[in-house]
C-alpha cells in the first residue's frame, strides 16, 4: 500500500524542528492530561457519553509529552499498525486534520478505536514512559479520539485516497468492526465491495452491543458514512447462508468472501431457573436497549426494568450491561463475579467508571440457582462463595466453591454475561469449511484464509469472543489476504 510519506516521515523537517522545540526533560515533566468526564452521579442517570473528550489545548499539551522516539515501540502494540508518533506529532503541531489523515491510513474507525480500544494493554503499555520511566503512558487513545472527532465535527472529513476501480466484486459478511475494517481496506484498493448485514442496521456489535454512553451511534454512523462515500455498498436484512448462500453469491459474480459474522449464541451457566422470566443474556438486554431503543416511549420494543439487577460476569460486556441497568433506573445494580477483582477481564477504565457510578461489586461469588415468584419471574438468586485455588489453563487462579457458603440475594432481573459461542449459521451453511471444536472457523493466522480458498474469515467467528480492535486487525489482515489471493488468481 502507498503511504503518505510526507506526513508519517519522522525525518521530515517540520518534525525535526518540532522535536527540538522542547527539551525531553520538559516533555517528561508534563503530567498526563486527565480525560474530562461527566460527574458520576449525573451520568448514571443519562445515556450521554461518559468521557467528554480533550480540548484542543489539552490535546496539544498531551501530544507534547510524546518524545517521538526513534524506535517507537508503541506501534508494535497496535493490532492495526497505526503510525502513532506521526499522528501525535501532527496534533502537537496543531495540524489536527493531518493527524486524522495519518490515522485513517491504517485505521478505518479511528473515532471508535479512540473510545473502546484497551490501549492500556496495547500501544500505551509499550510506550517509553511505561517501559523505561514508570510513568503514565502518553494518552494515545485519548489523542486518537481527539483527532478523529476534530475531523468529524469540522464537517470537512476527507476521504482517504482510493485506487482506480478494478471491477472485482468481493463480499464482506457482517458489518461489525472486523467487516468494516476489511471493507475499508478493500475499497481503498479499488475493489467493488458489498457488505451483507443480517440486522436492519449497519455496525454489528458497535450498534447492538456497546452502549451509547461509551460509543455514541452518531460516531459509528459517521465512520460508516465515510465508507459509503468511498463506494462500499451495504445490504441490510441479508443473512448470508439463508437469504442467499455463498454459492448463490459466487454465481452473482463475487470472487472472494471475508466472513466476520461475529460471536453468536450467548452462553448460559446451565443452572436451574436460568430460563425464568427476567433472566437475560447480555446480548439480548443490550440489543433491546441499544439497537431497538427500548428505553424510549417512541419505540415499540419492550424491556423489563428492575429495582435490583444482578449482572453475572466480569468482562466489558458485563460492565456495559450493569451500567446500562443503572441508567434504566435500577436502584441497585451489581456485578457478581466468581474470581477476584484482580482477575476481572474488563478494562480498568470501565471498572473504575462503574464503581464511580455506584455499581456494587460482589467478587468471589457464583450463582447456583435462580428462584421464581408465582408468575415465573425471577425473584432471588442463590449464590455460593468462592475462593481462589491453583492457576488454571488461562493462567488465572481457579475459583473453587466454599462448601456451606450459599445464601440468597433478592433480585428483579438477572443478566448473564459469561461469554458467547460462535454464530453457527455460516459454519453450518458452508460445506467443507474447516471448523474448530469450539465452532469457530479455522484460518491461516497470517492470511486469514479458510480451508476453502475464496473464503477468508476474522473477528469473533474466528476468535470466539475478543475485542473490537483485534477484530479490526483481523479485518485488515483478511482484506490483505483476499487481495493477494485475487491478484494471484
Amino acid at each position, binding site marked *: 500500500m502507498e503511504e503518505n510519506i510526507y506526513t508519517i516521515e519522522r525525518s521530515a523537517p517540520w518534525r525535526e524542528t518540532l522535536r527540538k522545540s522542547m527539551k525531553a526533560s520538559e516533555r517528561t515533566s508534563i503530567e498526563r492530561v486527565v480525560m474530562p468526564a461527566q460527574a458520576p452521579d449525573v451520568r448514571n442517570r443519562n445515556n450521554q457519553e461518559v468521557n467528554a473528550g480533550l480540548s484542543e489545548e489539552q490535546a496539544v499539551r498531551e501530544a507534547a509529552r510524546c518524545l517521538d522516539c526513534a524506535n517507537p515501540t508503541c506501534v508494535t502494540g497496535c493490532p492495526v499498525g497505526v503510525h502513532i508518533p506521526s499522528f501525535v506529532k501532527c496534533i502537537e503541531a496543531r495540524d489536527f486534520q493531518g493527524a486524522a489523515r495519518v490515522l485513517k491510513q491504517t485505521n478505518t474507525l479511528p473515532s471508535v478505536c479512540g473510545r473502546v480500544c484497551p490501549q492500556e494493554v496495547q500501544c500505551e503499555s509499550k510506550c517509553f514512559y511505561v517501559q523505561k520511566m514508570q510513568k503514565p503512558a502518553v494518552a494515545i487513545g485519548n489523542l486518537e479520539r481527539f483527532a478523529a472527532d476534530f475531523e468529524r465535527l469540522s464537517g470537512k472529513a476527507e476521504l482517504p485516497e482510493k485506487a482506480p476501480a478494478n471491477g472485482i466484486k468481493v463480499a464482506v459478511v457482517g458489518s461489525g468492526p472486523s467487516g468494516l475494517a476489511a471493507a475499508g481496506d478493500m475499497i481503498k484498493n479499488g475493489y467493488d465491495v458489498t457488505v451483507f448485514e*443480517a*440486522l*436492519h442496521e449497519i455496525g454489528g456489535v458497535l450498534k*447492538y452491543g456497546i452502549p451509547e454512553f461509551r460509543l455514541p451511534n452518531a460516531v459509528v454512523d459517521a465512520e460508516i458514512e465515510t465508507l459509503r462515500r468511498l463506494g462500499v455498498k451495504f445490504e*441490510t*436484512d*441479508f*443473512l448470508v447462508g*439463508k*437469504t*442467499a*448462500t455463498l454459492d448463490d453469491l459466487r454465481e452473482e459474480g463475487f470472487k472472494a468472501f471475508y466472513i466476520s459474522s*461475529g460471536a*453468536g*449464541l*450467548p452462553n*448460559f451457566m*446451565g443452572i436451574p431457573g*436460568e*430460563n*425464568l*422470566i*427476567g433472566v*437475560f*443474556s447480555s*446480548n*439480548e438486554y443490550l*440489543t*433491546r436497549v441499544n439497537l*431497538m*431503543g427500548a428505553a424510549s*416511549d*417512541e*419505540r*415499540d*420494543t*419492550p*424491556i*423489563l426494568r428492575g429495582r435490583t439487577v444482578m449482572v453475572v460476569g466480569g468482562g466489558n460486556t458485563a460492565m456495559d450491561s450493569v451500567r446500562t441497568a443503572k441508567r434504566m433506573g435500577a436502584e441497585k445494580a451489581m456485578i457478581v463475579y466468581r474470581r477476584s477483582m484482580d482477575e476481572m477481564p474488563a478494562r480498568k477504565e470501565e471498572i473504575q467508571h462503574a464503581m464511580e457510578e455506584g455499581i456494587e461489586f460482589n467478587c468471589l461469588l457464583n450463582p447456583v440457582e435462580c428462584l421464581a415468584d408465582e*408468575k*415465573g419471574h425471577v425473584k432471588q438468586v442463590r449464590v455460593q462463595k468462592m475462593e481462589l485455588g491453583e492457576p488454571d489453563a488461562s493462567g488465572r487462579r481457579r475459583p473453587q466453591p466454599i462448601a456451606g457458603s450459599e445464601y440468597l440475594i433478592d433480585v428483579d432481573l438477572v443478566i448473564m454475561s459469561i461469554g458467547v459461542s460462535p*454464530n*453457527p*449459521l455460516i459454519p453450518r451453511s458452508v460445506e467443507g469449511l474447516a471448523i474448530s471444536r469450539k465452532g469457530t472457523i479455522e484460518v491461516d493466522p497470517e492470511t486469514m484464509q479458510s480451508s476453502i480458498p475464496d473464503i477468508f474469515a476474522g473477528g469473533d467467528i474466528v476468535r470466539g469472543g475478543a475485542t473490537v480492535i483485534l477484530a479490526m486487525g483481523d479485518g485488515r489482515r483478511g482484506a490483505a489476504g483476499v487481495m493477494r489471493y485475487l491478484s494471484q488468481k
Partner: protein
Amino acid sequence: MNKIIKKEFLSEQVFRMVVSAPRIALRRKPGHFVIVRPTAEGERIPLTISDADPKEGTITLIAQKVGVTTHKLASLNEGDYVQDIVGPLGNATNIRKVGTVLCAGGGVGVAPLYPIVDGMKKAGNRVITVLAARNKDLILYEKEMRAISDEVIVMTDDGSSGRKGLVTQGMEEVIQREHVDEAVVIGPAIMMKFAALTTAKYNIPTLASLNTIMVDGTGMCGACRWTVGGKTRFVCVDGPEFDAHQIDFDEILKRLGAYKEEERKAFEAYQQKNA
C-alpha cells in the same frame, strides 16, 4: 423495504399479506420463518412463511392482531412498504415419506402448518389435517387445506363448524381409527401441549413448531431459548421445530408472557393515540 402486494383479513383479527421478497421466495422451504419490523420505530417479531411464489418474488405471511406490532403491521395497506423483512430463518421441516401424517393446527398455527401439509402430501404421504378454533369465524384455511389434504377434520369449541370439541378429540379419533406414523402440531402453546400429550400416549413421533419471543432471530440474543429434553435450545437456530414430547410447554407458557404488562400498557397507549 418490502412492498405489500396484497392484503386481506381472514377473520376479524387475522390477516394475510403477500409481500415482495424475491430472495426469500426463492429459498424458503416449509418450516422457515422471517423476522418482520413493520415500521422504523417497530419491534422485530417472527412470522412464519405460509406460502411463496418464486416466480412473482413474493411470500405470504399470516398474522393475528394481538399487540402494537401486529396492529401496526395490519394497518399497512397494499402498496405500502414493510420496513424490514429478513429470512428465511430457522431450519426447514424434514419432509419425507413416512406413511400417514396427522397434522393439527390451532388458530393462526395453520399458517406455518399449510406448507408442511403441502410438502408432506407431495412427498407421497397420506395427510389428515385437524383444524381447531373457538368458533367458525376463527377456522382459517379450511378450503386451502381441503385442497391438499386427504381428509380435513374441523373442531370448534362451540360446535359452530365441524364438530364440537377440542383438537385432541379430533386427533384421537384418527389415531384410534388408523395407524399414524407421524404428527405435526402447530398452534398456541396450550394447544400444542395437549396435542403432544395425546400423541405421547400412542408413542407417535410428533413435531411442534415453536413461536417464541425473538429479537434478532439469527442466534445472537438468546431471547427464544427454552428447555427441550432438559437442555436449553435456541428456537431461531436449533428450531423452530422440536420433538414435541421433549418440550417443557409450561415453561413456554410462562416465557411467552414475559412482557405481558409492558405490552398491555404499550397497547393502551397505541389505542389512545389511534382512537
